[in-house]
């Protein structure tokens, strides 16, 4: 097949969040061009923050992404509190961890069932599954709704949370709310077991390419998601304030999303990176889930990101049950509910400064960085999104994958590429803020 000429251009890649294109050009059996173009309309969030109050940053940056609105919220708050020197209470940190667990669980369920599973089941979307696999679709929607219902109790709603702000929470769950959350969470266990059974029965494409894996790491017990240093499988470890030395962002011509590199040409963030770096910290049901799925660090097949996500689903469900049970035992302190608005009443002390937030959100490590003046007005802002960090790595994967599958039909090559990109669960609104595969066989 060495004489093969293929041009692939997938315009507006489907079943990803946001707009992106895949462009592949094979001439005489040689790979001439292999790009992942992000074509999402740029929205200039960082620019819009300048001149605004640090107390507005969470509300605005949450709107970068509807899927990871809670993740942006948490990273934004962490950066803002770092900048003004505010230390949140331990209750606040526990509730934020619960929110992050729900965020990761909700997003992974959406990706596993609605975006990735149709590929594994050989259909174009979940719509035909409504007839062929009705109970599976119902299970997915039910699990997703449960996450949503818990977020509603905790922060008003999942898309653009209302009550999670700089300083803490505007409402705090009481006994009744904790009981309701616990029954919803424990009620999800049978569906989680059924999900594990389904996904462990599906064949993932085989493909290996070792790369650098980046995620939050820390020395404490537990799987780090909300707090930690930035670590890499190539031995890098840095404080979050030095995130720019990790991401080393650069702009390429064909994309509205910036890209990142660390020790090599590209690196990978997300569930697979977290599992590779922190999988040894899993225990109980999530450790069992990893065994059931046949996962063992270090995983170098990017298609298995979806499987790593499922391990994290189990981890987040079990961790959230633990949190709610312990809150029930200790009771919550509702006197910590606070109303800040624009801090008109000055209830939070503000100083000039700079601060960084680094949080593991569904697709990888998310960084927010703000510099503020003495009145708390933002003078500099920067957000580095997981998908921008992954884009270079996806292209590197595509460049290795295409020559390995050249003997396949154009349709099969296109599908393999689309599945690869989808496995990363790219969040394109975030990264531009992206996808296109067009095939023209000569």
């Amino acid at each position, binding site marked *: 097949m060495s004489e093969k000429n293929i041009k692939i251009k997938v315009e507006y890649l489907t079943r990803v969040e946001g707009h992106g294109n895949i462009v592949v050009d094979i001439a005489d059996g040689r790979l001439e061009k292999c790009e992942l173009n992000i074509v999402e309309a740029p929205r200039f*969030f960082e620019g819009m923050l300048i001149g605004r109050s640090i107390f507005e940053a969470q509300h605005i940056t949450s709107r970068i992404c509807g*899927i990871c609105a809670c993740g942006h919220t948490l990273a934004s708050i962490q950066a803002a509190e770092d900048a003004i020197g505010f230390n949140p209470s331990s209750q606040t940190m526990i509730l934020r961890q619960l929110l992050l667990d729900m965020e990761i669980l909700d997003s992974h369920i959406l990706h596993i069932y609605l975006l990735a599973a149709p590929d594994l089941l050989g259909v174009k979307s979940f719509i035909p599954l409504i007839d062929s696999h009705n109970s599976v679709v*119902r299970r997915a929607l039910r699990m997703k709704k449960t996450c949503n219902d818990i977020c509603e109790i905790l922060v008003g709603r999942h898309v653009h949370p209302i009550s999670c702000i700089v300083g803490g929470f505007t409402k705090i769950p009481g006994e009744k709310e904790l009981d309701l959350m616990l029954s919803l969470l424990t009620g999800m266990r049978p569906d989680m077991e059924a999900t594990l059974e389904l996904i462990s029965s599906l064949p993932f494409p085989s493909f290996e390419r070792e790369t650098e894996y980046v995620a939050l790491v820390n020395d404490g017990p537990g799987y780090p998601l909300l707090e930690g240093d930035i670590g890499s499988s190539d031995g890098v470890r840095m404080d979050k304030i030095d995130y720019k030395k990790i991401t080393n962002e650069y702009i390429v011509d064909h994309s509205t999303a910036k890209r990142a590199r660390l020790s090599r040409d590209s690196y990978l963030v997300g569930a697979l990176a977290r599992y590779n770096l922190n999988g040894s910290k899993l225990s109980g049901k999530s450790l069992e889930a990893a065994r059931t799925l046949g996962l063992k660090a270090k995983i170098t097949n990017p298609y298995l990101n979806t499987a790593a996500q499922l391990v994290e689903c189990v981890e987040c469900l079990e961790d959230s049950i633990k949190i709610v049970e312990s809150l029930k035992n200790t009771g919550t302190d509702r006197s910590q509910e606070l109303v800040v608005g624009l801090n008109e009443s000055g209830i939070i002390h503000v100083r000039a400064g700079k601060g960084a937030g680094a949080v593991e959100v569904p697709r990888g490590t998310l960084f927010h960085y703000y510099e503020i003046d003495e009145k708390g007005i933002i003078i500099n802002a920067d957000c580095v999104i997981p998908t921008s960090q992954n884009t270079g790595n996806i292209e590197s994967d595509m460049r290795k994958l295409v020559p390995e599958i050249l003997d396949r039909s154009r349709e099969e090559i296109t599908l393999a590429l689309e599945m690869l990109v989808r496995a990363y669960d790219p969040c394109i609104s975030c990264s531009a803020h992206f996808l296109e595969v067009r095939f023209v066989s000569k």
Partner: protein
Amino acid sequence: MKRPKVAFFDFACCEGCQLQIANMGEKLLDILDSIEVVEFREIMSEKWDQSYDIAIIEGSITTNHAVELIKEIRRRSKVIIAYGSCATIAGVNGMKNSYKLDEIRKYVYGDKASEFDTIPTMPVHQVIHVDYFIHNCPVYPPEVIEVLKAALAGLPYHVSDKAVCVECKLNENICMYDRGTTCLGPITRSGCNSWCINNGNICYGCRGMVSNPNKNGFREVLDGYDISLDLIIKKMDMYNKCRENDRNE
């Protein structure tokens, strides 16, 4: 009965309003029973090249390419629903218009700025005729159902023009001004059941302003609490910057 063909399109936005549909749970299957979704890029690989009975538009128009695309969608659609604040009032994307385009492009994309196509942000109705508006950031699910029912039946949907305060009082919330903060409830369209204030936060004006705001009353509230107009204007511009291009308001 033949099920109406419905398509979803997204422009500059966070796609959170689409997610609000996925968040409806198994109820979503009942909605899917009454319509035929022919195009929905975020969840479907299928594409459709004929006319649509209803096109649901999410996001703001921010590039020349988008202007052409939305005009083409209008030509192919019997009914257009602007879906979510980014589509109905341009929402947070409108803040961009407070800056010079060249400066904000340069700030975000440096010396590659010129490669990024961008025009002043517009809500959908500033480019094409819109038949139904579903405001809110994100959309409020009970209102989504109401507007869909109206659109499927061919009936008009009336967007409330009373202030959020009306619903907020019925919900017996303590006024945010009494709790020491400013709130845009007095000048913002209701219909969200005072969602944010019920959860302890303030109203940010995401549904757009009422058509005839009680300016004097609102000024009195601000004066009473010694709050500068400047602070409020900036706050209003978070969602409502593009209102200045609506000639009839």
